[in-house]
Protein backbone atom coordinates (compact mmCIF):
# COMPACT_ATOMS: atom_id res chain seq x y z
CA UNK A 1 0.00 0.00 0.00
CA UNK A 2 1.52 3.29 -1.17
CA UNK A 3 -0.01 6.39 0.30
CA UNK A 4 0.86 9.74 -1.26
CA UNK A 5 -0.49 12.77 0.60
CA UNK A 6 -0.56 16.29 -0.80
CA UNK A 7 2.86 15.80 -2.27
CA UNK A 8 4.72 18.81 -3.70
CA UNK A 9 8.16 19.35 -5.16
CA UNK A 10 9.80 22.69 -5.88
CA UNK A 11 13.22 22.81 -7.45
CA UNK A 12 15.69 25.59 -6.83
CA UNK A 13 17.25 26.30 -10.22
CA UNK A 14 20.86 27.28 -10.80
CA UNK A 15 19.75 30.84 -11.47
CA UNK A 16 18.30 31.04 -7.99
CA UNK A 17 14.68 31.05 -9.08
CA UNK A 18 12.37 28.27 -7.98
CA UNK A 19 10.34 25.97 -10.14
CA UNK A 20 7.39 23.93 -8.94
CA UNK A 21 7.35 20.60 -10.70
CA UNK A 22 4.61 18.91 -8.69
CA UNK A 23 1.85 20.32 -6.55
CA UNK A 24 -0.61 18.78 -4.18
CA UNK A 25 -0.71 15.24 -5.49
CA UNK A 26 -2.62 12.68 -3.41
CA UNK A 27 -2.91 9.07 -4.42
CA UNK A 28 -3.39 5.66 -2.81
CA UNK A 29 -2.13 2.51 -4.46
CA UNK A 30 -3.39 -0.71 -2.83
CA UNK A 31 -1.10 -3.71 -2.70
CA UNK A 32 -0.86 -5.68 -5.94
CA UNK A 33 -2.33 -2.99 -8.13
CA UNK A 34 -0.84 -1.91 -11.47
CA UNK A 35 -1.12 1.87 -11.70
CA UNK A 36 0.07 3.90 -14.66
CA UNK A 37 0.92 7.58 -14.60
CA UNK A 38 0.29 9.49 -17.77
CA UNK A 39 0.94 13.12 -18.52
CA UNK A 40 2.57 15.58 -20.89
CA UNK A 41 6.33 15.82 -21.00
CA UNK A 42 7.82 17.72 -18.07
CA UNK A 43 4.72 17.43 -15.88
CA UNK A 44 6.67 15.70 -13.15
CA UNK A 45 5.93 12.02 -13.70
CA UNK A 46 9.52 10.98 -13.16
CA UNK A 47 9.90 13.33 -10.22
CA UNK A 48 6.87 11.74 -8.57
CA UNK A 49 8.30 8.27 -9.09
CA UNK A 50 11.74 9.29 -7.79
CA UNK A 51 10.15 10.63 -4.63
CA UNK A 52 8.32 7.38 -4.06
CA UNK A 53 11.65 5.63 -4.59
CA UNK A 54 13.20 7.92 -1.97
CA UNK A 55 15.81 9.22 -4.43
CA UNK A 56 14.54 12.77 -4.25
CA UNK A 57 13.08 14.57 -1.25
CA UNK A 58 9.56 16.00 -1.33
CA UNK A 59 9.26 19.68 -0.46
CA UNK A 60 5.64 19.32 0.69
CA UNK A 61 3.40 16.49 1.85
CA UNK A 62 4.62 12.97 2.42
CA UNK A 63 4.72 9.45 1.09
CA UNK A 64 4.29 6.34 3.15
CA UNK A 65 4.68 2.74 2.13
CA UNK A 66 2.83 0.22 4.25
CA UNK A 67 2.44 2.85 6.93
CA UNK A 68 6.13 3.79 7.10
CA UNK A 69 7.09 7.24 5.86
CA UNK A 70 9.59 7.11 3.00
CA UNK A 71 12.94 8.56 4.09
CA UNK A 72 15.23 7.17 1.44
CA UNK A 73 15.68 4.31 -0.99
CA UNK A 74 15.16 0.77 0.20
CA UNK A 75 14.99 -2.72 -1.22
CA UNK A 76 11.21 -2.81 -0.77
CA UNK A 77 10.91 -0.49 -3.79
CA UNK A 78 12.75 -1.55 -6.93
CA UNK A 79 13.27 0.96 -9.75
CA UNK A 80 13.44 0.20 -13.47
CA UNK A 81 14.55 3.12 -15.65
CA UNK A 82 14.12 3.92 -19.31
CA UNK A 83 17.89 4.05 -19.79
CA UNK A 84 18.25 0.60 -18.21
CA UNK A 85 20.96 1.81 -15.80
CA UNK A 86 22.68 -1.55 -15.87
CA UNK A 87 26.18 -1.57 -14.37
CA UNK A 88 28.23 -1.61 -17.55
CA UNK A 89 31.27 -3.19 -15.88
CA UNK A 90 29.33 -6.26 -14.80
CA UNK A 91 28.04 -9.08 -16.93
CA UNK A 92 24.32 -9.68 -17.20
CA UNK A 93 24.57 -12.36 -14.53
CA UNK A 94 26.65 -10.09 -12.32
CA UNK A 95 24.06 -7.36 -12.66
CA UNK A 96 21.16 -9.61 -11.75
CA UNK A 97 23.02 -11.22 -8.85
CA UNK A 98 24.18 -7.84 -7.51
CA UNK A 99 21.09 -6.97 -5.53
CA UNK A 100 21.02 -10.41 -3.95
CA UNK A 101 24.68 -10.16 -2.99
CA UNK A 102 23.97 -6.79 -1.40
CA UNK A 103 21.23 -8.46 0.61
CA UNK A 104 23.84 -10.86 1.93
CA UNK A 105 22.97 -13.91 -0.16
CA UNK A 106 26.09 -16.09 -0.67
CA UNK A 107 27.62 -15.93 -4.10
CA UNK A 108 26.73 -19.38 -5.40
CA UNK A 109 23.16 -19.09 -4.27
CA UNK A 110 22.80 -15.56 -5.59
CA UNK A 111 24.00 -16.65 -9.00
CA UNK A 112 21.69 -19.61 -9.03
CA UNK A 113 18.71 -17.45 -8.28
CA UNK A 114 19.89 -14.85 -10.79
CA UNK A 115 19.99 -17.57 -13.43
CA UNK A 116 16.41 -18.46 -12.64
CA UNK A 117 15.38 -14.88 -13.23
CA UNK A 118 17.38 -14.74 -16.45
CA UNK A 119 15.45 -17.76 -17.65
CA UNK A 120 12.19 -16.06 -16.86
CA UNK A 121 13.16 -13.06 -18.98
CA UNK A 122 14.64 -15.30 -21.71
CA UNK A 123 18.24 -14.17 -21.23
CA UNK A 124 19.73 -17.40 -19.86
CA UNK A 125 21.98 -17.66 -22.91
CA UNK A 126 23.40 -14.19 -22.40
CA UNK A 127 24.46 -14.52 -18.77
CA UNK A 128 28.15 -13.86 -19.54
CA UNK A 129 27.60 -10.90 -21.86
CA UNK A 130 28.34 -7.30 -20.97
CA UNK A 131 25.39 -4.89 -21.28
CA UNK A 132 26.91 -3.13 -24.27
CA UNK A 133 26.78 -6.39 -26.19
CA UNK A 134 23.00 -6.60 -25.88
CA UNK A 135 20.21 -4.97 -27.87
CA UNK A 136 17.93 -2.42 -26.23
CA UNK A 137 15.18 -4.93 -25.58
CA UNK A 138 17.60 -7.38 -24.02
CA UNK A 139 19.08 -4.70 -21.80
CA UNK A 140 15.65 -3.77 -20.55
CA UNK A 141 14.90 -7.43 -19.86
CA UNK A 142 18.11 -7.67 -17.86
CA UNK A 143 17.26 -4.51 -15.93
CA UNK A 144 13.84 -5.87 -15.06
CA UNK A 145 15.36 -9.18 -13.95
CA UNK A 146 17.93 -7.34 -11.83
CA UNK A 147 15.21 -5.50 -9.96
CA UNK A 148 12.84 -8.43 -9.65
CA UNK A 149 15.67 -10.64 -8.40
CA UNK A 150 15.78 -9.02 -4.98
CA UNK A 151 11.99 -9.26 -4.80
CA UNK A 152 10.89 -5.74 -4.03
CA UNK A 153 7.24 -5.47 -2.98
CA UNK A 154 6.85 -2.43 -5.21
CA UNK A 155 8.10 -1.92 -8.74
CA UNK A 156 8.74 1.67 -9.87
CA UNK A 157 9.00 1.78 -13.64
CA UNK A 158 9.87 5.02 -15.44
CA UNK A 159 8.98 4.66 -19.11
CA UNK A 160 10.74 1.32 -19.22
CA UNK A 161 9.79 0.68 -22.83
CA UNK A 162 10.11 4.26 -24.08
CA UNK A 163 13.34 3.69 -25.96
CA UNK A 164 12.34 0.45 -27.66
CA UNK A 165 10.98 -0.08 -31.13
CA UNK A 166 7.33 -0.98 -31.60
CA UNK A 167 7.84 -4.66 -32.05
CA UNK A 168 10.17 -5.18 -29.10
CA UNK A 169 7.90 -3.00 -27.08
CA UNK A 170 4.86 -5.15 -27.81
CA UNK A 171 6.79 -8.27 -26.86
CA UNK A 172 8.10 -6.84 -23.62
CA UNK A 173 4.70 -5.48 -22.65
CA UNK A 174 3.21 -8.95 -22.99
CA UNK A 175 6.08 -10.48 -21.04
CA UNK A 176 5.82 -7.94 -18.25
CA UNK A 177 2.10 -8.55 -18.01
CA UNK A 178 2.50 -12.29 -17.72
CA UNK A 179 5.28 -11.93 -15.14
CA UNK A 180 3.15 -9.54 -13.13
CA UNK A 181 0.19 -11.84 -13.27
CA UNK A 182 2.34 -14.46 -11.55
CA UNK A 183 4.01 -12.16 -9.02
CA UNK A 184 1.29 -9.61 -8.30
CA UNK A 185 3.72 -6.88 -7.13
CA UNK A 186 2.46 -3.39 -6.74
CA UNK A 187 3.54 -1.49 -9.85
CA UNK A 188 3.83 2.25 -10.41
CA UNK A 189 4.35 2.66 -14.13
CA UNK A 190 5.18 5.97 -15.83
CA UNK A 191 4.49 6.10 -19.55
CA UNK A 192 3.85 8.43 -22.45
CA UNK A 193 1.76 5.95 -24.32
CA UNK A 194 -2.00 5.94 -23.77
CA UNK A 195 -2.24 2.63 -25.50
CA UNK A 196 0.33 1.07 -23.17
CA UNK A 197 -1.30 2.50 -20.07
CA UNK A 198 -4.70 1.07 -20.94
CA UNK A 199 -3.26 -2.27 -21.99
CA UNK A 200 -1.35 -2.82 -18.75
CA UNK A 201 -3.04 -1.02 -15.88
CA UNK A 202 -5.75 -1.37 -13.29
CA UNK A 203 -5.89 2.38 -12.94
CA UNK A 204 -4.44 5.28 -14.95
CA UNK A 205 -3.54 8.56 -13.23
CA UNK A 206 -3.56 11.48 -15.66
CA UNK A 207 -1.48 14.50 -14.62
CA UNK A 208 -1.78 18.04 -15.95
CA UNK A 209 1.18 20.07 -17.13
CA UNK A 210 3.36 22.44 -15.11
CA UNK A 211 3.03 22.19 -12.21
CA UNK A 212 1.91 18.59 -12.28
CA UNK A 213 -1.38 17.87 -10.54
CA UNK A 214 -3.79 14.98 -10.72
CA UNK A 215 -6.28 15.71 -13.45
CA UNK A 216 -8.19 12.48 -13.30
CA UNK A 217 -7.84 8.90 -12.17
CA UNK A 218 -9.37 6.47 -14.62
CA UNK A 219 -10.01 2.89 -13.46
CA UNK A 220 -9.54 0.45 -16.34
CA UNK A 221 -12.21 -2.21 -16.16
CA UNK A 222 -10.96 -4.72 -18.64
CA UNK A 223 -10.81 -8.45 -17.98
CA UNK A 224 -7.49 -10.18 -17.29
CA UNK A 225 -5.49 -11.94 -18.61
CA UNK A 226 -5.45 -9.45 -21.45
CA UNK A 227 -4.58 -10.41 -25.02
CA UNK A 228 -3.61 -7.50 -27.19
CA UNK A 229 -5.30 -8.55 -30.46
CA UNK A 230 -8.57 -9.12 -28.63
CA UNK A 231 -8.24 -5.89 -26.73
CA UNK A 232 -7.82 -3.86 -29.91
CA UNK A 233 -11.23 -5.03 -31.08
CA UNK A 234 -12.79 -4.31 -27.71
CA UNK A 235 -14.99 -1.17 -27.79
CA UNK A 236 -14.42 -0.48 -24.10
CA UNK A 237 -10.67 -0.44 -24.76
CA UNK A 238 -11.11 2.02 -27.63
CA UNK A 239 -13.22 4.30 -25.49
CA UNK A 240 -10.57 4.29 -22.75
CA UNK A 241 -7.95 5.26 -25.31
CA UNK A 242 -10.11 8.05 -26.72
CA UNK A 243 -10.96 9.33 -23.26
CA UNK A 244 -7.36 9.33 -22.09
CA UNK A 245 -6.02 10.92 -25.29
CA UNK A 246 -8.50 13.73 -24.81
CA UNK A 247 -7.59 14.17 -21.15
CA UNK A 248 -3.94 14.26 -22.15
CA UNK A 249 -4.31 16.84 -24.91
CA UNK A 250 -6.54 19.06 -22.77
CA UNK A 251 -4.30 18.56 -19.75
CA UNK A 252 -1.30 19.79 -21.67
CA UNK A 253 -3.02 23.05 -22.43
CA UNK A 254 -4.58 23.41 -19.00
Amino acid at each position, binding site marked *: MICIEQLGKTFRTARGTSHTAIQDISLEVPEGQFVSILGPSGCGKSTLL*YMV*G*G*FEQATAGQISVNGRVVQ*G*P*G*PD*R*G*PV*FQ*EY*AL*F*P*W*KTVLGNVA*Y*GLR*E*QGVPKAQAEERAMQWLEKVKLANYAGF*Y*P*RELSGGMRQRAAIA*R*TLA*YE*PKILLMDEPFGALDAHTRLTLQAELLSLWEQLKNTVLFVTHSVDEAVYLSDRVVVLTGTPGRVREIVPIDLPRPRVRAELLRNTAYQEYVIQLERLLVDGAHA
Partner: protein
Amino acid sequence: MKTPAATGSATTLWYEKPAVAMVLVVVLLGIVWALASWRLDFSSFPGPWQALQALPALILDPSALWAISLSLGRMFIGYAWALVFAIPLGLAMGRSRWVHEFFNPLVSLVYPMPKAALMPILMLWFGLGSFSKILVIAMGVSLPMLYHSCLGASRIESKLVWTAQAMGMGPVARLFRIVLPAALPEILIGCRVGVVMALIVMVSSEMIARQEGVGNLLFTSMDMAQYPSVYAVILILALMGVVLDWLFEKARRYLTRWSESAGGTILR
Protein backbone atom coordinates in the same frame (compact mmCIF):
# COMPACT_ATOMS: atom_id res chain seq x y z
CA MET B 1 26.99 0.15 -35.97
CA LYS B 2 28.25 3.58 -36.88
CA THR B 3 31.81 2.48 -36.64
CA PRO B 4 34.54 5.07 -37.18
CA ALA B 5 35.46 3.30 -40.39
CA ALA B 6 31.96 3.67 -41.77
CA THR B 7 33.29 5.65 -44.70
CA GLY B 8 33.78 3.61 -47.82
CA SER B 9 34.36 -0.11 -47.85
CA ALA B 10 35.37 -1.52 -44.52
CA THR B 11 38.11 -4.04 -45.26
CA THR B 12 41.54 -3.11 -43.92
CA LEU B 13 44.00 -2.08 -46.61
CA TRP B 14 47.67 -3.03 -46.31
CA TYR B 15 48.77 0.37 -45.12
CA GLU B 16 46.05 0.49 -42.50
CA LYS B 17 47.68 -2.19 -40.38
CA PRO B 18 49.08 -0.25 -37.40
CA ALA B 19 52.51 -1.85 -37.58
CA VAL B 20 52.89 -1.16 -41.30
CA ALA B 21 51.72 2.43 -40.94
CA MET B 22 54.11 2.94 -38.03
CA VAL B 23 57.07 1.63 -40.00
CA LEU B 24 56.12 3.83 -42.94
CA VAL B 25 55.94 6.90 -40.74
CA VAL B 26 59.21 6.07 -38.98
CA VAL B 27 60.97 5.63 -42.32
CA LEU B 28 59.45 8.86 -43.57
CA LEU B 29 60.56 10.80 -40.50
CA GLY B 30 64.01 9.22 -40.80
CA ILE B 31 64.31 10.37 -44.41
CA VAL B 32 63.27 13.90 -43.53
CA TRP B 33 65.81 13.91 -40.73
CA ALA B 34 68.58 12.57 -42.97
CA LEU B 35 67.85 15.12 -45.67
CA ALA B 36 67.74 17.99 -43.21
CA SER B 37 71.02 17.01 -41.61
CA TRP B 38 72.67 16.58 -44.99
CA ARG B 39 71.36 19.91 -46.23
CA LEU B 40 72.31 21.92 -43.10
CA ASP B 41 75.68 20.25 -42.65
CA PHE B 42 76.10 21.29 -39.01
CA SER B 43 78.54 19.31 -36.94
CA SER B 44 75.91 19.60 -34.22
CA PHE B 45 73.22 17.95 -36.31
CA PRO B 46 74.18 14.40 -37.27
CA GLY B 47 71.94 12.19 -39.39
CA PRO B 48 69.81 9.33 -38.10
CA TRP B 49 72.41 6.76 -39.02
CA GLN B 50 75.07 8.31 -36.79
CA ALA B 51 72.57 8.57 -33.95
CA LEU B 52 71.73 4.90 -34.33
CA GLN B 53 75.43 4.05 -34.28
CA ALA B 54 75.81 5.85 -30.98
CA LEU B 55 72.91 3.90 -29.54
CA PRO B 56 74.65 0.61 -28.66
CA ALA B 57 77.38 2.40 -26.70
CA LEU B 58 74.69 4.04 -24.60
CA ILE B 59 72.59 0.96 -24.08
CA LEU B 60 75.56 -1.21 -23.20
CA ASP B 61 77.01 1.31 -20.77
CA PRO B 62 75.94 0.40 -17.22
CA SER B 63 76.21 3.96 -15.99
CA ALA B 64 73.92 5.20 -18.75
CA LEU B 65 71.46 2.40 -18.03
CA TRP B 66 71.64 3.33 -14.36
CA ALA B 67 70.81 6.94 -15.21
CA ILE B 68 67.86 5.86 -17.32
CA SER B 69 66.53 3.52 -14.68
CA LEU B 70 66.91 6.21 -12.02
CA SER B 71 64.78 8.53 -14.11
CA LEU B 72 62.21 5.85 -14.78
CA GLY B 73 62.13 4.92 -11.12
CA ARG B 74 61.45 8.51 -10.07
CA MET B 75 58.81 8.75 -12.75
CA PHE B 76 56.98 5.67 -11.53
CA ILE B 77 57.08 6.76 -7.91
CA GLY B 78 55.80 10.21 -8.82
CA TYR B 79 53.12 8.63 -10.93
CA ALA B 80 52.08 6.31 -8.12
CA TRP B 81 51.81 9.23 -5.70
CA ALA B 82 49.58 11.03 -8.15
CA LEU B 83 47.39 7.94 -8.48
CA VAL B 84 46.99 7.68 -4.75
CA PHE B 85 46.21 11.34 -4.11
CA ALA B 86 44.69 12.72 -7.27
CA ILE B 87 42.10 10.08 -8.07
CA PRO B 88 40.30 10.07 -4.72
CA LEU B 89 40.39 13.85 -4.60
CA GLY B 90 39.10 14.03 -8.17
CA LEU B 91 36.26 11.63 -7.41
CA ALA B 92 35.36 13.60 -4.32
CA MET B 93 35.37 16.80 -6.38
CA GLY B 94 33.09 15.17 -8.88
CA ARG B 95 30.61 14.00 -6.28
CA SER B 96 30.58 16.78 -3.74
CA ARG B 97 29.72 20.35 -4.53
CA TRP B 98 31.69 21.60 -1.51
CA VAL B 99 34.90 19.83 -2.31
CA HIS B 100 34.56 21.03 -5.87
CA GLU B 101 34.01 24.64 -4.92
CA PHE B 102 36.99 24.59 -2.65
CA PHE B 103 39.54 22.90 -4.86
CA ASN B 104 38.48 23.91 -8.35
CA PRO B 105 39.74 27.52 -8.18
CA LEU B 106 43.09 26.34 -6.84
CA VAL B 107 43.39 23.71 -9.52
CA SER B 108 42.54 26.07 -12.35
CA LEU B 109 45.04 28.56 -11.01
CA VAL B 110 47.97 26.18 -11.02
CA TYR B 111 46.91 24.42 -14.22
CA PRO B 112 48.97 26.56 -16.61
CA MET B 113 51.93 26.74 -14.28
CA PRO B 114 54.94 24.88 -15.65
CA LYS B 115 55.52 22.36 -12.91
CA ALA B 116 59.14 21.75 -13.82
CA ALA B 117 59.78 25.47 -13.35
CA LEU B 118 59.24 24.89 -9.66
CA MET B 119 62.41 22.84 -9.51
CA PRO B 120 64.67 25.71 -8.43
CA ILE B 121 62.24 26.56 -5.64
CA LEU B 122 61.55 22.99 -4.59
CA MET B 123 65.26 22.34 -4.44
CA LEU B 124 65.52 25.11 -1.90
CA TRP B 125 62.88 23.44 0.21
CA PHE B 126 63.45 19.76 -0.17
CA GLY B 127 67.07 19.52 -1.11
CA LEU B 128 68.74 17.64 -3.86
CA GLY B 129 67.56 14.11 -3.41
CA SER B 130 65.02 12.51 -5.63
CA PHE B 131 62.24 13.93 -3.51
CA SER B 132 61.91 17.26 -5.33
CA LYS B 133 61.85 15.55 -8.68
CA ILE B 134 59.34 12.96 -7.60
CA LEU B 135 57.20 15.71 -6.17
CA VAL B 136 57.32 17.77 -9.32
CA ILE B 137 56.43 14.73 -11.44
CA ALA B 138 53.56 13.89 -9.11
CA MET B 139 52.27 17.45 -9.39
CA GLY B 140 52.49 17.44 -13.17
CA VAL B 141 50.70 14.12 -13.45
CA SER B 142 48.07 14.95 -10.86
CA LEU B 143 46.29 17.63 -12.81
CA PRO B 144 45.06 15.55 -15.76
CA MET B 145 44.20 12.73 -13.36
CA LEU B 146 42.33 15.10 -11.11
CA TYR B 147 40.49 16.68 -14.00
CA HIS B 148 39.41 13.43 -15.59
CA SER B 149 38.48 11.74 -12.31
CA CYS B 150 36.33 14.72 -11.46
CA LEU B 151 34.76 14.69 -14.88
CA GLY B 152 34.15 10.96 -14.72
CA ALA B 153 32.62 11.10 -11.27
CA SER B 154 30.38 14.03 -12.08
CA ARG B 155 29.12 12.45 -15.26
CA ILE B 156 28.02 9.23 -13.68
CA GLU B 157 24.46 8.42 -14.56
CA SER B 158 22.70 9.21 -11.30
CA LYS B 159 20.41 6.29 -11.94
CA LEU B 160 23.31 3.90 -11.46
CA VAL B 161 23.83 5.30 -8.00
CA TRP B 162 20.10 5.21 -7.31
CA THR B 163 19.87 1.60 -8.38
CA ALA B 164 22.60 0.71 -5.93
CA GLN B 165 20.89 2.74 -3.22
CA ALA B 166 17.66 0.89 -3.84
CA MET B 167 19.53 -2.36 -3.31
CA GLY B 168 20.55 -1.06 0.08
CA MET B 169 24.17 -0.10 -0.57
CA GLY B 170 25.74 2.39 1.84
CA PRO B 171 27.55 5.58 0.80
CA VAL B 172 31.12 4.35 1.26
CA ALA B 173 30.46 1.13 -0.58
CA ARG B 174 28.83 3.15 -3.35
CA LEU B 175 31.90 5.30 -3.78
CA PHE B 176 34.14 2.30 -4.32
CA ARG B 177 31.76 -0.11 -5.98
CA ILE B 178 29.73 2.21 -8.18
CA VAL B 179 31.45 5.58 -8.60
CA LEU B 180 34.95 4.19 -9.08
CA PRO B 181 34.13 1.58 -11.72
CA ALA B 182 31.64 3.83 -13.48
CA ALA B 183 34.18 6.62 -13.73
CA LEU B 184 37.04 4.27 -14.60
CA PRO B 185 37.07 4.83 -18.37
CA GLU B 186 37.37 8.57 -17.85
CA ILE B 187 39.90 8.15 -15.03
CA LEU B 188 42.06 6.01 -17.26
CA ILE B 189 42.01 8.64 -19.96
CA GLY B 190 43.45 11.02 -17.38
CA CYS B 191 46.01 8.40 -16.40
CA ARG B 192 47.06 7.99 -20.00
CA VAL B 193 47.56 11.70 -20.47
CA GLY B 194 49.44 11.46 -17.19
CA VAL B 195 51.93 8.98 -18.63
CA VAL B 196 52.99 11.47 -21.27
CA MET B 197 52.98 14.28 -18.74
CA ALA B 198 55.21 12.26 -16.42
CA LEU B 199 57.76 11.84 -19.17
CA ILE B 200 57.67 15.52 -20.07
CA VAL B 201 58.04 16.67 -16.49
CA MET B 202 60.75 14.12 -15.85
CA VAL B 203 62.85 15.27 -18.79
CA SER B 204 62.32 18.97 -18.27
CA SER B 205 62.96 18.86 -14.54
CA GLU B 206 66.20 17.03 -15.20
CA MET B 207 67.11 19.62 -17.77
CA ILE B 208 66.56 22.41 -15.30
CA ALA B 209 68.09 20.73 -12.27
CA ARG B 210 70.68 18.41 -13.66
CA GLN B 211 71.57 15.37 -11.66
CA GLU B 212 71.80 11.74 -12.47
CA GLY B 213 69.16 10.83 -15.01
CA VAL B 214 68.30 10.77 -18.69
CA GLY B 215 67.99 14.53 -18.94
CA ASN B 216 71.50 14.86 -17.58
CA LEU B 217 72.78 12.24 -20.00
CA LEU B 218 71.44 14.42 -22.77
CA PHE B 219 73.09 17.61 -21.58
CA THR B 220 76.37 16.01 -20.63
CA SER B 221 76.62 14.66 -24.16
CA MET B 222 75.89 18.11 -25.45
CA ASP B 223 78.42 19.81 -23.19
CA MET B 224 81.06 17.38 -24.37
CA ALA B 225 80.13 17.88 -28.04
CA GLN B 226 78.98 14.27 -28.38
CA TYR B 227 76.22 15.14 -30.82
CA PRO B 228 75.37 11.62 -32.04
CA SER B 229 74.87 10.65 -28.39
CA VAL B 230 72.55 13.63 -27.90
CA TYR B 231 70.32 12.28 -30.61
CA ALA B 232 70.66 8.73 -29.41
CA VAL B 233 69.33 9.82 -26.01
CA ILE B 234 66.49 11.63 -27.72
CA LEU B 235 65.71 8.43 -29.60
CA ILE B 236 65.66 6.53 -26.32
CA LEU B 237 63.30 9.07 -24.79
CA ALA B 238 61.03 8.93 -27.82
CA LEU B 239 60.99 5.18 -27.66
CA MET B 240 60.17 5.31 -23.96
CA GLY B 241 57.23 7.58 -24.70
CA VAL B 242 55.87 5.44 -27.48
CA VAL B 243 56.29 2.17 -25.61
CA LEU B 244 54.82 3.44 -22.35
CA ASP B 245 51.87 4.95 -24.17
CA TRP B 246 51.30 1.77 -26.09
CA LEU B 247 51.49 -0.39 -22.97
CA PHE B 248 49.14 1.89 -21.16
CA GLU B 249 46.65 1.84 -23.98
CA LYS B 250 46.69 -1.96 -23.91
CA ALA B 251 46.02 -1.94 -20.19
CA ARG B 252 43.33 0.66 -20.55
CA ARG B 253 41.49 -1.32 -23.15
CA TYR B 254 41.67 -4.43 -21.06
CA LEU B 255 40.39 -2.71 -17.92
CA THR B 256 37.50 -1.05 -19.72
CA ARG B 257 36.63 -3.83 -22.10
CA TRP B 258 33.07 -3.63 -20.82
CA SER B 259 32.73 -0.01 -21.81
CA GLU B 260 31.06 1.27 -24.95
CA SER B 261 34.12 3.27 -25.86
CA ALA B 262 36.65 0.53 -25.17
CA GLY B 263 37.30 0.11 -28.86
CA GLY B 264 37.97 3.82 -29.23
CA THR B 265 40.84 5.25 -31.21
CA ILE B 266 44.00 6.94 -30.07
CA LEU B 267 42.09 10.12 -29.68
CA ARG B 268 41.85 11.09 -26.11
